[in-house]
């Protein structure tokens, strides 16, 4: 891939980060930390890696599908969907407001294009992704399923039910990713409930594991391409993605304190100074 293309993707990521802090500031609620940390991954998926159609059809036949399991990082999901053409960018201003399609956590219920499952209550998305992957196989559809999960989310038992099932059933058209930022609401995961050796765990569960720096665009693209090449080989695929919570805004970076807190006017201004507007603000 040409370096100009990385610049293009990095520019989009910069705009998405502006959207995130402005959306969360606009309603004075929401989750900026994880959203900023996962921005590069989602931009890579929707602007480079996935074969998808913004005119949106729920069944998505012939398309790669993405499922967000850690639904609280809805700001990044909504911004990326809007910037990719799923719905008008100006609708981002309605985030978390009454009668909006952009609910606090993503849902199909209000008919927002691009969303295929409700998420927010944690631990459910891997099962959903597996189900969608199995229907693709049943229908002879050779496109891929992607899913994203928080690391704290791995404390939910359903994730491990799904992990066991996917390996047993050779769900090899699935590329899941975990946002390993080491933070959750009550503090560092190591203090709240240690996740242990994640790589060893997923390997032991029978998955192919890739490790990647989730805030380095060229590396994300490289590893996602490798993951694609590893699909359809009998094993489900997991990306362990090291990210900084709050990446791109210095005072939000690396701390659980910005998991679910909105910036005030002054903090917004400080944040926006660090993020270039490349596609025009909504």
């Amino acid at each position, binding site marked *: 891939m040409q370096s100009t293309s990385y610049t293009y993707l990095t520019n989009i990521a910069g705009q998405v980060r502006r959207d995130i802090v402005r959306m969360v500031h606009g309603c004075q609620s929401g989750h900026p930390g994880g959203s900023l940390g996962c921005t590069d991954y989602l931009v890579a998926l929707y602007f480079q890696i996935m074969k998808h159609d913004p005119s949106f059809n*729920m*069944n*998505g*036949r012939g398309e790669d*599908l993405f*499922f967000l399991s850690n639904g609280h990082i809805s700001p990044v999901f909504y911004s990326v969907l809007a910037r990719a053409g799923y719905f008008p960018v100006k609708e981002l201003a309605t985030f978390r407001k009454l009668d909006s399609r952009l609910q606090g956590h993503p*849902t*199909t*219920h209000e008919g927002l294009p691009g969303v*295929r*499952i*409700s*998420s*927010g*209550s944690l*631990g*459910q*998305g*891997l*099962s*959903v*992704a*597996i*189900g*969608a*992957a*199995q*229907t*693709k196989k*049943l*229908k002879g*559809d050779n496109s891929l399923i992607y899913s994203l999960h928080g690391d704290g989310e791995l404390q939910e*038992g*359903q994730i491990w*039910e*799904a992990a*066991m*099932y996917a390996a*047993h*059933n050779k769900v090899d058209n699935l590329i899941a990713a975990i946002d390993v930022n080491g933070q959750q609401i009550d503090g560092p995961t190591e203090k709240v409930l240690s996740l242990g050796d994640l790589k060893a765990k997923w390997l032991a569960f029978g998955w192919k594991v890739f490790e990647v720096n989730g805030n380095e665009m060229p590396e994300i693209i490289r590893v996602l391409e490798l993951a694609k090449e590893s699909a359809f080989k009998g094993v489900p695929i997991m990306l362990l993605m090291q990210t900084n919570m709050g990446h791109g805004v210095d005072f939000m970076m690396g701390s659980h304190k910005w998991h679910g807190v909105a910036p005030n006017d002054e903090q917004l201004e400080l944040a926006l100074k660090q993020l270039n507007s490349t596609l025009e603000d909504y």
Partner: protein
Amino acid sequence: MKKYTFTEKKDTRSGFGAGLLEAGRRNPDVVALCADLVGSLKMEAFIKEFPERFFQIGIAEANMMGIAAGMTIGGAIPYTGTFANFSTGRVYDQIRQSIAYSDKNVKICASHAGLTLGEDGATHQILEDIGLMKMLPGMTVINPCDYNQTKAATIAIAEHHGPVYLRFGRPVVPVFTPADQPFEIGKAWTVNEGEDVTIFATGHLVWEAIQAGEELEKMGISAEIINIHTIKPLDVESVLRSVAKTRCVVSAEEHNRLGGLGDSIAQVLIQHDPVPMEYVAVNDQFGQSGTPAQLMKKYGLDAEHIVKAVQRVLLRKKSTVTSLV
């Protein structure tokens, strides 16, 4: 006029198994999932004919509900199979978020509901599932009464787009609905026309209501028996039409009296036509081990208790009429 004929005894779960096979033959999108209870749910025939459309999940009901939700994306129509307790209480949040709130076309098929599961005891005898499921917006709740009706309902729900909770049971019980009777979701079935009281019954209690009706007839009491197989959406029109004639009501269900069929009927009556009503249901208790017949008697769910409830409600109806005079 009686519209039922006793033919033989069969379990409703076998009606589900037969219906699943037929639904699978009629619609290639129908797939089945099971959490390690294939034999109990009578899914073998479907698995034999459509092995590639069957998914053994293992003992992981939460994962099963999520996978079913995901499978709908792309057009599959998943039927999940496990006991009623593990189909509802164990996985309520998965159903709520990934299926109901996500508008997913999943058919949650729940066997061994209620007390008639028998000897396994209260850990497995869920009596709260109708309430749990009917409170979810958009969820259709169906509790058929015999083999034929369960089979017909299992076939019919494939044609209905949206989440469905289909509840049936373990024991062998009388078959009395016509084998060729089409199943209409949300349309009550008048089993027996009468004048003095309406008995609204669902599931295994429909046969008990029929037995009660025959006893009542000997006493000179004419009972209208209406089978409410679809608890949600409730056939409000049929309820009100019958009550307008009989002016008193007994509800009968194998469920906690809180949150079940009785409460759905009572809500309609309170709003439109308040008449005396009695419940035949479990009185906010857990069950216990025993044979189905012993449990139905002990917890007040058999024909004898329906007769007593009718006698109580008729006294109240009479006193209401007297006080009005």
